[in-house]
């Protein structure tokens, strides 16, 4: 009799954990990068980043279409795809990691939480382990992930010929800004 009474309560709790700790995603997250050199500044924006965040486990994943980066100069865009990241061979950059200090984040309460994200980043056929600080913002139940990371091009086998060595920075700043407004 006791068990019989408990069952609906347990079911409610189970459903709640499933609902409250949900998976959220976006298909139009933003990633930009910036290369500063004495000759010219190069920047590009990608507004179609796919990213998923599992609030229960802290799993955080990104899928970035390389051809989705748009430059101000069309020739830069062509060279980026053809000569540097080789988009035909390696169409996507993928990051699969997790928020290592998930306990700091309360997805139920509005606020800004400094976290650390660690995982594997695949770019241009090279996979590297990355650990980077970032910010999780919760506002009105919507989660936003913001981070700025630096990427050393040589780490990902992206070589710069001597002729344009002074045009392209060896380390570029990458800015991530994803609003997880979709629920799975």
């Amino acid at each position: 009799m006791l068990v019989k009474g408990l069952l609906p309560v347990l079911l409610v709790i189970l459903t709640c954990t499933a609902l409250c700790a949900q998976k959220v995603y976006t298909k139009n997250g933003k990633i930009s990068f910036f290369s500063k050199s004495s000759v010219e500044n190069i920047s590009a924006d990608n507004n179609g980043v796919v990213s998923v965040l599992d609030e229960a486990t802290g799993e955080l994943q990104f899928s970035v279409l390389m051809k989705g980066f748009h430059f101000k100069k069309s020739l830069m865009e062509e060279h980026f795809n053809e000569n540097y990241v080789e988009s035909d061979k390696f169409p996507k950059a993928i990051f699969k990691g997790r928020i290592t200090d998930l306990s700091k984040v309360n997805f139920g309460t509005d606020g800004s939480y400094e976290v650390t994200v660690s995982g594997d980043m695949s770019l241009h056929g090279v996979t590297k382990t990355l650990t980077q600080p970032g910010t999780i913002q919760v506002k009105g139940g919507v989660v936003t992930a913001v981070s700025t990371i630096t990427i050393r091009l040589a780490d990902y086998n992206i070589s710069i010929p001597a002729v344009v060595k002074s045009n392209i920075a060896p380390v570029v700043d990458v800015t991530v800004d994803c609003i997880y407004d979709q629920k799975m």
Partner: protein
Amino acid sequence: MTRTSVLLLGFVFSGLSIRAQDHPAPDLLSAIDSQSAPPTSYASATFKTTRLINGHTVEGLGKGVLDFKISHRFGKLNGGGYQLWGLDNATMRMGFDYGITDRILIGIGRSTFEKTFDLFFKVKLLRQSEGDINMPFTVSYIPTMAWTTLKFDKSRKNLSSSRYSYTHQLLIARKFSANTSLQLMPTFVHQNLVPLATDHNNMFAIGVGGRQKITRRTSFNAEYYYQLPSTQLSGSTNSLSMGFDIETGGHVFQLHVTNSQGMTEKQFISNTDGKWGKGDIFFGFNISRVFNVGKQRRKQVTPSGT
């Protein structure tokens, strides 16, 4: 009843624990990727520049991009040591191409050969793509007008219209892989003045061309125009050219050998008279330098919802 409840609960919990201890990095992305059709991906850089060798490629220029081109053809290789195998002589063409939009280009040029001006448009009608929109080819249409300003032969009656000739080309190209691209060029040439009374004013040709990348920044190119024999000028030969593209930043250098001396469509497609077998081979180069002069491209439009 109680037993079934306990069983049910046990089942739910065991399911939950399995889920919690699942693989360390479950693939969350594939669930989303499979929800929607892949976005359309357009083939870019089917060729390195707007010219294959003498003729055009399907490529245009970005909006507001100016391409300054200098092209040289030295003399015939069979000129012998006296002419330093052709290097003593040269014809050249200087020209500007400008991207009005990402798909429409206008160009002007002046060749020393036959003192010819040329004016053309290039319109990209179709773009090779995969994904949401599938299109196997890139297709560009190029109408060209050439104006020859050589002094007239006074011994005959001359009309100012004799100086003009017109070319229409439809270029159909496919980038088969990152390294290999091929192009077909059906061509129509109309010349108001032809050398002989028995020559046709209208000429049809079909060109084939392609590029094979050797490294990321160099490629081997070839181009051949076959003239429909019943329409070609008497004594003319088909144009065959081979060469290399070398790209360095904003420059593209093209080095080649060809049996055509002229560099506008009418001159090399229908008025070539060099024969490879006899050593009528011209060494030449094109240099392209790109400048961003117009308004910079608009940033990508943010999808709705952000």
